[in-house]
């Protein structure tokens, strides 16, 4: 056998070997992908530790939201434990509580600390006038690392659609969140708000919120600490929509459901009473209309 033929045969042997190995490894590689819930290499490499990194990326988004003013692990006060302050309205109770929580800098204990304050960020501010975009890379990274972290999608969507005018991007990101978390009522609620407030597509918003309510009813009542505030938010939005559409009876039903579990039911009961009066008035008016006969 000539030398060239031997070389070609060795090459063919190697090729068949690699082909055989590929057929053997391909199904395993697919199994790795399924185990990681997504096909990304990060999931295969990091495993469950990616959730820790995702939390860190989300915290980094919060640090950016506060323009670098953030408690360290050594500070007495703990860092914010949830993301509600990131989407809270100015002047709301949540915002006030957050202001108190972020007042973590105590009086300097010595001259080193006092002088060092000149080189630290010591003012509590939040991003504004379009700079909110700066938190987005961290939120995207957080979603990439942990696609099951719901907050990431809802917070990113809030800023994208409310402050940055990127409604299409917000919708796409929420839909990505839906693909990764098909049972999440929070993402559906946010998607409904997007349709209602940004696209003015009230009919679609209603369907999405109804689905959100069903998802809540499927998962939360069995939970140890059901998210009653989440349910109330969905019900109130649905009630507003029904009221706007003239379906006062349905609006009352939703508000009554909300009042049953609400931490402050008095306001809701008053709204129910007002709607009932309105409904009674419209029925009386209808009965006063002379018949065509």
């Amino acid at each position: 056998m000539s030398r060239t033929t031997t070389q070609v045969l060795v090459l063919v042997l190697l090729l068949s070997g690699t082909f055989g190995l590929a057929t053997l490894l391909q199904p395993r590689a697919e199994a790795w992908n399924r185990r990681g819930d997504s096909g990304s290499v990060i999931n295969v490499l990091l495993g469950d530790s990616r959730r820790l990194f995702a939390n860190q990326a989300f915290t980094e988004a919060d640090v950016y939201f506060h323009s670098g003013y953030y408690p360290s692990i050594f500070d007495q006060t703990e860092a914010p434990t949830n993301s509600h302050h990131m989407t809270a309205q100015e002047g709301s109770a949540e915002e006030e509580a957050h202001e108190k929580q972020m007042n973590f800098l105590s009086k300097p204990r010595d001259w080193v600390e006092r002088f060092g304050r000149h080189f630290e960020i010591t003012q509590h501010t939040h991003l504004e006038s379009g700079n909110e975009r700066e938190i987005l890379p961290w939120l995207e990274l957080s979603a990439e690392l942990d696609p099951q972290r719901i907050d990431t999608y809802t917070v990113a969507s809030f800023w994208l659609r409310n402050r940055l005018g990127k409604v299409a991007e917000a919708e796409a990101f929420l839909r990505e969140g839906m693909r990764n978390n098909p049972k999440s009522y929070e993402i559906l609620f946010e998607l409904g708000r997007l349709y209602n407030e940004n696209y003015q597509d009230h009919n679609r918003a209603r369907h999405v919120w109804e689905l959100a309510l069903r998802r809540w009813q499927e998962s939360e009542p069995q939970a140890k600490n059901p998210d009653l505030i989440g349910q109330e938010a969905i019900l109130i939005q649905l009630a507003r929509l029904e009221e706007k559409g003239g379906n006062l009876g349905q609006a009352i039903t939703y508000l009554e459901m909300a009042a049953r579990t609400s931490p402050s039911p008095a306001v809701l009961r008053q709204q129910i009473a007002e709607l009932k009066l309105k409904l009674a008035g419209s029925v009386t008016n209808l009965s006063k209309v002379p018949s065509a006969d």
Partner: protein
Amino acid sequence: MNTVFALATVVVKELYRRKDFYVLFILTALVTVLMGSVSFFHDAKIARYLKEICLLLVWVSALVIAIGASARQIPSERENRTIFPLLAKPVTRWQVVLGKFTGCWLACGLALLMFYVFFGVISGSRTGHWPLAQYLQVLWLHWVMLGVVVAMVLCGSVIFAAPSSNATICFIVVTGILLLGRHLNQVALREPEPLSSVLYAIYFLIPHLEWYDVRDFVIFDHALIGWGSCALATLYAAAYTGLLLFAAWLVFRRKPLNL
């Protein structure tokens, strides 16, 4: 003084003959440009994450250059036996220490200038504004801090046996101060005696290098730090630099030069 500058010039020339700076600069530029090419939600104006990554790389590179360059100065002179003709010039040992320090510090300054020009171009091209006074302030504080680091490493190089061990120890100490220095008093207060007093003593003894890390002011577009505070911080760093150089000279003047 001419002798000191002559020695310093040799050190600066050594820096641009070696490949350390070029490798670190290219790596920094490559990583920054790669990160800058990533698009988030089709928004081209997002810049702060890029500024943070670039400045982090600048800080790491500057520390590597400062510690790496300073750690080998005196040991290599002894190893190559060039210290003997140098001291026979006549050059005093104090001039050797001061010349090596000046050279390393100037070399770090040149490297920093290149890094910050690159950072300024990247940041300005993204955000469209050029806060030159702030860049100057950050660069100055960074350079002043590197002066303390260079003096610390030079002092280490006459104490520790090998440049590698000196560089490793100094790198750990500097990183430790940068990460924990600010919080050491809080940690001390939570510990029982006598550990609390020991920690508090360390807190007052260490040079507070973390003051000079004002990257957040640039990343988050905060206002300038008061120039008075900068001047006081410079005096503080100068005091520590002088102290460490004096300590280096005290050890070096009685040290046998034969290996």
